[in-house]
């Protein structure tokens, strides 16, 4: 089951790399980052964690890996992180919410919309945390090299 999830999330993230026209040499990395983020999310939510914090941690891992890949392969972080977080993005839920709105089921629709906002916020926070961590490490390095 875990293996299936790994393969499908890799294909999904790499496929989105092609749709978003990522540079050809980082398509595989996009898939790998997407797989790592999704598997962490899958394991955490399977282990009983709520989906919002699980998404937060998944996005954080995807963000950190994107930063590392961007440095290694000399591309902007966004080219990898965009496809890397795609498996976590609440696309299905946002479609579901809108469908319930259109079908006059406002009760369910508002609940789902709130969930979408929370999940999107968790992804935004996860990516922002990884960016802040990267900048902090950079600043500590700069301060160390100045003091020595």
């Amino acid at each position, binding site marked *: 089951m875990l293996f299936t*999830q790994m393969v499908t999330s890799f294909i999904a993230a790499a496929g989105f*790399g092609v*749709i978003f*026209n990522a540079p050809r040499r980082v398509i595989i990395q996009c898939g790998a980052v997407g797989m790592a983020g999704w598997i962490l999310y899958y394991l955490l939510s399977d282990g009983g964690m709520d989906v919002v914090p699980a998404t937060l941690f998944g996005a954080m891992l995807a963000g950190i890996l994107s930063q590392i890949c961007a440095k290694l392969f000399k591309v902007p972080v966004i080219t990898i992180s965009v496809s890397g977080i795609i498996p976590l*993005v609440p696309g299905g839920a*946002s*479609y579901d919410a809108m469908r319930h709105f259109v079908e006059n089921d406002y009760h369910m629709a508002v609940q789902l919309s709130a969930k979408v906002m929370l999940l999107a916020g968790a992804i935004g*926070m996860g990516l922002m945390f990884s960016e802040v961590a990267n900048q902090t490490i950079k600043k500590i390095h700069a301060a160390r090299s100045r003091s020595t």
Partner: protein
Amino acid sequence: MMDRVLIARVSMLAGKIMLESGAETYRVEDTMNRIASAFGLENVQSYATPTGIHFSVDFAEVTNFIRIQNRATDLHKIAEVNSISRDITSAKISINEALVKLNDVDRARLAFPFWMQIIAAALASGSFAIMFGGDWPDLFPATIAGGVGYAAMLGAAALVEVSFVAHFAASFILGILAVLFISNGFGANVDKVIIGAVMPLVPGLHITNAVRDLMAGHLVAGVSKGVESVLTAFAIGAGVAVVFAF
């Protein structure tokens, strides 16, 4: 002192390409400021929103403005502009070379061919149907419906300028396909097939980008992107709901 108008042209062209390719607004402003200060301008002010860029240098000078018409996601162009801006800040290329290079990037069509995008969308759709808890019989219906839906979106987008209509038509077509597949015994859960198939269309990325812009303090950009993505999600939900209404 280099020609101020030329410098403004270079940095605004860089900003325009990045915004049209879907970069975050704070990155666009940062790149424009770096380019302008690399050419020796001081007190650079840039302000980017999803629909336009303002750029000014000094109180005595004029302010320039560009309107952004079309927005898509094209990460390759963002990477290209990024490497040109690195070359500029490390003084590897002159301002005229930078202008020529940016014009090339602006005109180039770097995207993957359409058939490849459609295959990628189809494979991603099938994968999502499994990832979101679908059973194996759902794999092929979701793959086919996702590919056809994405192709319909590309085709409709070429015919009509309004992306709302393109998304509505695409999700209507893939909804019909999914329901036909399930009613003929091809696939198990209609919900999983549809959710997998709409994933290449839904603006999940825009929702996330909007939240990031809001958190970074870019309130205008965040709100406008958020509204854009809600509108797109509405078009998709409506397209599928029309199928279920029959």
